[in-house]
């Protein structure tokens, strides 16, 4: 059903990837509906919290403090987690993380694993790697099952299947689970997933998870969820492997009093998510008796080095930025070519790729600032976007093609025009006449030739008005006399 490529190394640039989406009205309707519902729920619950801005300030300060002192907190986490019976592994790259996880599964003679939704595993493309090595992976989050069975890609980091509607889910489930009489009632669909997974939970002895937080003070790990599939995976298997980005540490247990207040409200518009689990190493008689944490760097330590970009890693993956982004709300997640879409993806993905891939993403924004306004940890996403745009330009400046690229020639001409008012006004008048040819009756320009087409291939343009502000001002002054 899907043709999305969520590997930033292979995905086409945003402005090309977005084209099939813009021509898919059902997908756009599904995305617009879901993001509108979450926006409204969030707005209501944030409004009732009289100390919301203070909570944001605290959350932001805690996360910034962690990143500045990440080395010390990671070592503390490792020491305490190990003391509690956990085993900590370090992976510099995605490849190394995958290898460590596969080796651990082989030690267990595991041919199957159950999995809690984890964006970090999507980042390192763990599932296809394990499948190729002969390990069957069972996703257990409802949205992830829909995607796995439907061979679809995630388009959101909290509700990954928000681009799929109930009748599409019915089609996927009835086809893959062999349920002919299934209706499209979400309750019945959810029931089908519950039944499908129950035996997996009870029978598969190895689980893979991510984590929302690592607590340095205690060596504990916390997972925030809604369905209980997380609790099943954390409780029933004999072995648990958690793959976690190095930035996910919090200094102390008490810091959860801030994070848990801002996360669910921002993510799903709830006062609190149904289940949050915290565990510390291994507890005899309760839950997995072998516990591994794989700490993943994968370019994160390089992001830390740049003061403005460092804040990217404050992210707690709530997805409020994408729910409020006027670009994401039109395109959904697939156009971003990464498991991290939306505004946070537009700054995170290119940095995880050392700016060698996904360079078009920092431009996939109108810089309206809605993402910054709703971010619970106050990441100034527009500022980072601008900085990354400058990086892209600096790279392109060194390339020989620049002398012949229409965009750069155009910009040099624009530079000349803007510096000379009389040429500027003359060009404006000529442009007005020229653009009339392309302006439709409703006042919009929907197609332009040549370089102008780069704008109109995925956006409409307002036709030029008959009078510029300068002309209106001059006419007004004349009338007054």
């Amino acid at each position, binding site marked *: 059903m899907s043709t999305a490529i969520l590997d930033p190394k292979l995905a086409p640039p945003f402005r090309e990837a977005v084209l099939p989406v813009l021509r898919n009205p059902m997908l756009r309707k599904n995305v617009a509906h879901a993001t509108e519902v979450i926006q409204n729920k969030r707005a209501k619950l944030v409004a009732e919290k009289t100390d919301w801005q203070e909570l944001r300030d605290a959350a932001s300060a*805690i996360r910034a403090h962690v990143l500045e002192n990440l080395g010390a907190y990671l070592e503390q986490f490792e020491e305490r987690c190990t003391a509690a019976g956990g085993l900590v592994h370090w992976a510099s790259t995605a490849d190394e993380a995958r290898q460590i996880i596969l080796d651990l599964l082989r030690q267990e003679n595991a041919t199957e694993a159950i999995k809690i939704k984890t964006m970090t595993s999507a980042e390192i493309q763990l599932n296809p790697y394990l499948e190729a090595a002969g390990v069957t992976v069972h996703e257990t989050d409802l949205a992830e099952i829909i995607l796995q069975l439907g061979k679809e890609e995630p388009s959101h980091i909290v509700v990954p299947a928000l681009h799929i509607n109930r009748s599409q889910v019915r089609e996927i489930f009835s086809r893959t689970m062999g349920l002919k009489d299934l209706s499209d009632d979400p309750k019945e669909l959810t029931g089908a997933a519950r039944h499908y997974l129950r035996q997996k939970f009870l029978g598969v002895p190895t689980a893979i998870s991510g984590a929302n937080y690592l607590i340095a003070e205690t060596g504990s790990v916390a997972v925030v969820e809604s369905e*209980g599939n997380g609790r099943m995976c954390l409780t029933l298997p004999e072995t648990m492997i958690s793959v976690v980005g190095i930035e996910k540490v919090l200094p102390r247990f008490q810091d959860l009093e801030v994070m848990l207040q801002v996360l669910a409200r921002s993510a799903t518009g709830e006062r*609190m998510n149904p289940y949050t689990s915290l565990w510390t190493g291994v507890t005899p008689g309760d839950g997995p008796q072998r516990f591994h944490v794989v700490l993943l760097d994968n370019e994160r330590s390089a992001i830390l080095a740049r003061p403005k970009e460092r804040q990217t890693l404050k992210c707690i993956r709530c997805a409020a930025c994408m729910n409020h982004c006027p670009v994401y709300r039109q395109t959904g997640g697939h156009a971003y070519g990464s498991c991290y879409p939306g505004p946070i993806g537009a700054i995170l993905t290119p940095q995880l790729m050392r700016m060698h891939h996904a360079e078009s993403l920092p431009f996939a924004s109108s810089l309206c600032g809605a993402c910054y306004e709703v971010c619970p940890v106050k990441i100034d996403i527009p500022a980072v976007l601008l900085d990354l745009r400058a990086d892209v330009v600096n790279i392109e400046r060194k390339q020989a093609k620049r002398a012949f690229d229409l965009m750069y020639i155009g910009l040099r001409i624009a530079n000349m025009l803007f510096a000379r008012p009389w040429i500027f006004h003359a060009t404006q008048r000529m442009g007005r006449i020229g653009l009339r040819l392309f302006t439709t009756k409703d006042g919009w320009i929907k197609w332009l030739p040549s370089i102008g087409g780069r704008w109109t291939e995925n956006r409409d343009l307002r036709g030029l008005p008959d009078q510029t502000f300068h002309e209106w001002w001059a006419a007004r002054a004349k009338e007054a006399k």
Partner: protein
Amino acid sequence: MNAPISSRQRILDSIRSATSSVAKPAAELSTAYAVLPRPYIRKGQMTASGRLELLIERLREYDAEVVEATPDAVPAAIDAQLAASGKHRFVAPSGLDPENLVDGFDWKIDYSLTTGEIELAEGVVTAASCAIADSGTIVLHHGPSEGRRVITLLPDWHLCILRASQVVETLPEYFDRFRNAPALITWISGPSATADIEMTRIKGVHGPRFLHVILVRD
């Protein structure tokens, strides 16, 4: 295990060099942490009864059923809840007050029940460690009267006995009460739910679909 060790060093070196201008020396780290701004609300302003009313309202918004009982009427309240559930086979943690194991039902006490035995139970009765009124959250620390995590997970029906003195108004008040983190914690806010299909909230995916609370006015 040579490779992971060298990766550990590589990652830590890379972090240290990236943060060298901002990282605090070890001796100053706790001071730097202590001065982080925490201007949010710590203490609630409600009266004791207002706090309980809020908790009940929040729990009911999650479709949890709440009844109140005086301390000496707890077994009777449990009896009424179990009878109304229409279920017979119940699990209880080993530390649950024996007077709460009311007659007329098939009780399995979790000394070390197998997963299969727990899966056969229709419901579970436990105590709790704390509840947070502001978000309608019940907190289990999985001590002897709350039981292992699995017993409040597999049965479809959970009855939780909560004392009024265990209810706090705000989340920070919970953290003030429990300065030292227990090894295992589950924060439960209503029955398990999903909104993955068209953002329609569906109650009960994998965890218990029914949450009942007896609030004991102690």
